[in-house]
């Protein structure tokens, strides 16, 4: 017994070192697993508060840019509006309960953005208080940004599309061939689209959109254009470089999409299995 105590006293530093090292490695491994990194997160009141305080100052330097984006978006929306109202209005009766929009949008401001690491996260200034929850999609007027991973009361952490753990189901705009969008960790403006079958008509400059399969994003959210493509080693699938519409290094304001039918659809899918 005495020897054990002596041993513990003699090696207490090494033991403390090993304990803390195991703890930090545990956190590290968790952070490399999607949907597991719950504990170490900047979405708490202290770190979130500091980031939003800093962002308040930083925001002023980008106001002009954000304004231009808003004007562009308004222009596009106005042209859509006149386009739709000039068409003949459908006079068939629709029950208002079935007419409800399944998607609910919330606006939020990005208060921390990362893009130089391989696993990047974004912090926004809305949280569970504003109805945000895990697996809500995040977009800007130009294209997709990521998926809400974790929420606190006032803040939410988004797993950015610039994260090697994330893959989003997307498709070609021209045809319905789909694949999954991932990121290889190199260029923050170029993502990789994989598993597009060889039969798909892939042309440089074609637009990639989301395909609504994942229940997170509605169909038709723009993603990017095809920059480059090549067949994989088996000659059966394309690997496509996608130039993103979003400038991921400067995001500013985002929309968070809540799919009201998500739970219902998920239940139906799980019955199938």
């Amino acid at each position, binding site marked *: 017994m005495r020897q054990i105590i002596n041993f513990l006293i003699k090696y207490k530093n090494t033991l403390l070192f090993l304990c803390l090292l195991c703890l930090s490695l545990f956190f590290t491994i968790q952070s490399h697993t999607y949907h597991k*990194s719950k504990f170490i997160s900047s979405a708490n009141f202290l770190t979130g508060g*500091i980031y939003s305080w800093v962002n308040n100052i930083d925001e002023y330097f980008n106001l002009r840019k954000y304004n231009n984006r808003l004007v562009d978006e308004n222009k596009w929306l106005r042209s859509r509006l006149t386009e739709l109202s000039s068409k003949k209005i459908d006079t068939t009766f629709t029950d208002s309960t079935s007419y409800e929009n399944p998607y609910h949008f919330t606006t939020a401001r990005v208060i921390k953005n990362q893009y130089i690491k391989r696993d990047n*996260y974004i912090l926004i200034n809305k949280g569970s208080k504003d109805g945000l929850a895990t697996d809500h999609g995040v977009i800007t007027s130009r294209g997709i940004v990521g998926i809400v991973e974790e929420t606190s009361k006032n803040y939410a952490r988004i797993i950015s599309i610039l994260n090697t753990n994330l893959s989003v189901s997307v498709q070609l705009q021209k045809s319905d061939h789909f694949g999954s969008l991932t990121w290889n960790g190199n260029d923050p403006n170029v993502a990789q689209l994989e598993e597009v079958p060889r039969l798909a008509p892939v042309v440089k400059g074609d637009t990639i959109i989301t395909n609504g399969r994942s229940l997170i994003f509605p169909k038709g959210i723009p993603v990017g254009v095809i920059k480059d493509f090549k067949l994989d080693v088996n000659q059966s699938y394309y690997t496509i470089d996608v130039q993103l519409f979003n400038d991921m290094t400067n995001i500013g304001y985002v929309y968070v999409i809540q799919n009201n039918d998500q739970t219902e659809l998920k239940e139906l899918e799980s019955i199938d299995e």
Partner: protein
Amino acid sequence: MNSLLLSNTARFIILILIQVVVLNNINFLGYINPYLYVLFVLLLPLNLSQYKVLFFSFLIGLSIDFFEDSGGVNAAATLVIAYLRPVILKFSFGVSYEHQTIKYYQTPITQRLSYISILVLVHHFILFSLEIFNYSYIILILKRTLFSSIFTILLILLVTALFQKKSK
């Protein structure tokens, strides 16, 4: 002792804030960032007991991790250099460290440089290895380690030089 505690606490908070507010947004040439908060571990009092050194180093690393959403990457890296610190101190400063007679700012620049460089290189190598977590990217890890280390070492020398003047 109290003033020592106060100055170290202040250093702890100021270094974390500088790191997350300013330095993490530099992104020089796309990916090079200095990690100045390592300075906290380097400047912890030399006669502080080792388990306190380990604990405080872990704490500053974990705080940075909270801000960066990086799991336990920074905590692990700072913990390892805190553990290695006595060995490196002995290696760099030789006998005078063992007698605990040295004052950080009174050591020759070459000895100080070797102390800083070794710990920063080890820290950055572990940091980027764990962050990338894939040894098929070993070239990328080494590249980031080298460039970020140069940046960090220069910044540490600059900051310590500035504070040296004030304390005299």
